[in-house]
């Protein structure tokens, strides 16, 4: 059974189409990441799925129900984390959770959820005194306290430090293990790669691709060998066959090849002769980020860094 069915969804603000003819389905139990640059239509799509925004045209069914007509029973089956934190700063973490828990037929025990989001030690602290990352986890706790069948997460880890992000990921993984469907928007490719069964990339309000992370990564081209060359003198000594793979800055060698062994052999032979340190050498498939950036037509972060 599909938890989410979206057909030809469009949202216009005046003449501007923020979402333009988007269609997709999400089977129950799947975690789908929606990626896209700023202004791609991710949040607008999510807000229509949550029932906050009325579509200009198209149809939406969440758990078999049109979100704008979803009643109390439907809302009890849906959890969400908004793009920005939306909590009363005067309440403690425990008070906040105790306030939301009674709204649901089968809420998680407050102590269990405090442990899940790793805020047991801060349970008696006022929300307003917590760090941004901790507040975001309280937001997540409210989103999952009712054991939702579907959870919408709008950039849940934006602005969090790496440790807080990993804790958030663990909480989301815990939920998916229990069978919940999750629709996640994010700017972080590693987040999508870690969590998602499937990736939908939006750009300009339209779906650019709808695939698995592995398949998206495969669109990034052949495997690559990367070697930083901070000393320009070294680059000048490269044989012509390797010099052809220097990037525009002349400070990095980037060989894209299906024959990694041959590429490595040539590189290591030259490095051995030149007594070059290979500590920075990287060999591997194209990253999901490379594939994503190629898809939306932006230079990779490596290229940006070198251009700067």
């Amino acid at each position, binding site marked *: 059974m599909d938890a989410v069915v979206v057909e030809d969804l469009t949202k216009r*603000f005046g003449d501007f189409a923020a979402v333009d003819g988007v269609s997709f389905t999400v089977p129950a139990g799947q975690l789908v990441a929606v990626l896209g640059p700023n202004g791609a239509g991710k949040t607008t799509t999510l807000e229509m799925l*949550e029932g906050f925004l009325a579509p200009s045209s198209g149809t939406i069914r969440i758990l078999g129900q049109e979100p704008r007509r979803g009643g109390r029973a439907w809302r*009890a089956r849906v959890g969400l984390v908004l793009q920005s934190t939306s909590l*009363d700063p005067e*309440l403690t973490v425990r008070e906040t959770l105790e306030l939301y828990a009674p709204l649901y*037929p*089968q809420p998680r025990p407050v102590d269990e959820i405090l442990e899940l989001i790793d805020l047991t030690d801060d349970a008696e602290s006022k929300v307003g005194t917590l760090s941004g990352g901790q507040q975001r986890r309280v937001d997540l706790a*409210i989103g999952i306290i009712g054991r939702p069948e579907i959870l919408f997460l709008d950039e849940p880890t934006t602005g969090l430090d790496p440790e807080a992000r990993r804790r958030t990921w663990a909480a989301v993984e815990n939920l998916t293990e229990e069978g919940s469907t999750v629709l996640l928007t994010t700017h972080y490719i590693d987040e999508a790669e870690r969590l998602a069964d499937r990736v939908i990339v939006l750009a300009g309000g339209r779906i650019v691709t709808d695939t698995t992370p592995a398949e998206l990564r495969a669109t990034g081209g052949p495997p690559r060998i990367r070697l930083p060359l901070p000393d320009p003198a070294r680059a000048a000594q490269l044989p012509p066959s390797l010099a052809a793979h220097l990037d525009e800055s002349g400070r990095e060698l980037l060989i894209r090849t299906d024959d990694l062994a041959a590429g490595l052999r040539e590189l290591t032979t030259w490095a051995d002769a030149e007594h070059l340190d290979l500590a920075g050498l990287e060999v591997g498939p194209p990253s999901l980020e490379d594939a994503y950036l190629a898809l939306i037509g932006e230079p990779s972060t490596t290229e940006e860094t070198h251009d700067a």
Partner: protein
Amino acid sequence: MPDQTLPSAAELLLLQIRYQARLLLANGRAMVIGVGLPVILLITSANSHGHVSRTSVAGRAVFGLTLTAWNTYGIRLVAAREAGILKRWRATPLPRSCYFAARIIATTLVSVLAGAVTVAVAVLLYHTHLTVDIALGLLIVFVLAAAAWAAAATALTAAVSTVESASPVFILIYFPVVIISGVLGTINEPGWLHTLARYLPAEPSIHAATSVLRHAPGAPLVPTHDLIVLAAWVVVGLAVALPTFRWEPHRPVQRRAARSAA
């Protein structure tokens, strides 16, 4: 199959009233202004014989009550909306009417408390006459007055788009209304202004509270005209608020996107 029965609306309403009242009472600055300032003004209105008039007691009590029911409540409601708190509540199984009603009921309770403190100080320090009948009459007036102001404030929130503009808008409307209504002293001239004040929610609150404090056996406890005006403000405030109330913050991002695309 686990029990999927939703909690009753009455149960959730009580929970929400407790939560909203707790948030209001936890706001120290609002409590100092809503409870402390009217008491200070009451004390400064005492004459050299240590006596305060019943009009002064009624005016100061209504001042405290309306500060809470109009300014504190209205400004906090806009702030909660713009912070996304209302949007979050709207997405939960809490009936929207419960949230709406709980905020107004909790505000009414705390506002009545603010008015009652002023009356209690008047009784303790200045021996203002208080019987069970008078206390009951004041309770009726305060409840109706607080509900009228809170309903009107709820209606106004739809016209206030940012947290920054909430305070100026609410205060700029509030002070002219309460001053022409006699909160800080009776104003009888010009006549048209006095007539206008009789149909705004402040003057009937003060007039009704003064009448109750002067209650003589055999006379009606609360003037009917004042009760009708206050009840009308409750009805009109809610009638305007229900269809226009906004649960979500304003959306400048989409407007900017639309403009840039145009």
